[in-house]
């Protein structure tokens, strides 16, 4: 393994760390805003389940990420440019407090670097099509499932008089749903970094095309995302947990359960989806059970604009970063 490969793997793990840092808010926003856990307890809880996710999910998402460009497209410089594009975009949106998708930043970054190096023919259209379709499906799935769970719970317990006891039960339930969501987050997002590391190893001839993901890659990716979550970003917690709609423990539980089911399904299907999109859709779904006006559509609209700009934004950064490598051979 050359020095360049080691450096790129470190940068990829850095991206994974930032992913955890950036998306920690998604895992813990509802559990913190409903005061079930303190922020410190919540990040430790989420980080543990981010790491433990490797025991539950395969590596189909990692394989998808390593196949978004035609074999032989990437060299070390292009992968480096892709990662810089994704990390750069993540940091810009983190600074602005926008809950955008690290996953789509990575996909945009990979596309930008591949197009800068080879041209549009480098992209595998069917893989990008799958990812694009799930940009629409994942928030809608989170929305519909959360709405259905929330309505079901309200319907089941509407005659129950002991509200304090009920709330206590929902608070406990939220611990389970937050853990399930963190498993889904770790399972889907850590695999994206595994996909990048797999691409590096294949590009350098260390692994052959179609090889399985080595265990050390799996463990290091889950460790990086877990650590990132542990030192998570607080700017986005506020937007996710309270600005979109006000949540009670029952709502937090419904939103996290819906997002966990959506993420689990996508991960088993091998589709890299955005945990941010999914949980935002789910929070909006819970808000909609009272009325549409309970959702602050202005904030939700700002979030949607950040989503729309993520792939082109990361694409552009990666494209520009790769140009000097191309110019100087």
């Amino acid at each position, binding site marked *: 393994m050359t020095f360049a490969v080691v450096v790129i793997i470190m940068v990829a793990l850095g991206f994974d760390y930032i992913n955890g840092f950036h998306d920690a808010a998604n895992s813990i926003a509802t559990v913190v805003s409903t005061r079930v856990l303190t922020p410190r307890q919540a990040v430790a809880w989420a980080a543990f389940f981010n790491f433990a996710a490797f025991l539950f999910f395969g590596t189909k998402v990692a394989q998808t990420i390593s196949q978004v460009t035609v074999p032989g497209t990437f060299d070390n410089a292009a992968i480096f440019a892709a990662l810089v594009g994704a990390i750069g975009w993540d940091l810009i949106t983190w600074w602005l407090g926008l809950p955008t998708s690290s996953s789509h930043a990575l996909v945009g970054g990979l596309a930008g670097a591949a197009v800068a190096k080879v041209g549009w023919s480098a992209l595998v259209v069917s893989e990008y099509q*799958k990812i694009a*379709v799930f940009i629409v*499906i994942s928030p*809608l799935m989170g929305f519909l499932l959360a709405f*259905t769970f929330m309505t079901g719970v309200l319907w089941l317990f509407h005659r129950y008089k002991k509200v304090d006891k009920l709330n206590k039960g929902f608070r406990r339930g939220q611990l389970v749903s937050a853990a399930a969501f963190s498993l889904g987050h770790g399972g889907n997002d850590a695999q994206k970094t595994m996909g990048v590391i797999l691409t590096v190893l294949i590009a350098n001839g260390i692994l052959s095309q179609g090889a399985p993901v080595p265990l050390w890659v799996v463990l290091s990716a889950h460790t990086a995302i877990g650590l990132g979550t542990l030192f998570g970003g607080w700017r986005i917690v506020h937007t996710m947990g309270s600005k979109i709609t006000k949540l009670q423990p029952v709502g937090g539980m419904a939103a996290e359960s819906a997002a966990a089911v959506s993420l689990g*399904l996508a991960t088993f*299907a091998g*589709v890299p989806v955005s945990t941010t999109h999914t949980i935002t859709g789910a929070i909006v779904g819970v808000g*909609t059970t009272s009325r*549409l006006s309970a959702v602050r559509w202005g904030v939700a609209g700002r979030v949607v604009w950040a989503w729309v700009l993520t792939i082109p934004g990361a694409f552009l950064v990666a494209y520009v970063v790769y140009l000097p490598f191309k110019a100087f051979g």
Partner: protein
Amino acid sequence: MSLSRRTWFFLVVPVAMLFIYEPTPAALRWVNIALAGLSLFWFVLFAIEDLTRMRRERRRMEGKPR
């Protein structure tokens, strides 16, 4: 006669699922169908609720018993 915004919102989801049905990988199209079905279910329930409420209000304004 007009349905609420929330009710119409649940009709938008099946339309979106139909729109992206073709580009969805064949193995995952059941997700589009399941989500469209779930959303249509809520649309029908909310439409019935809206229509019943409107009828009740009209009868109250006309001074008829509910």
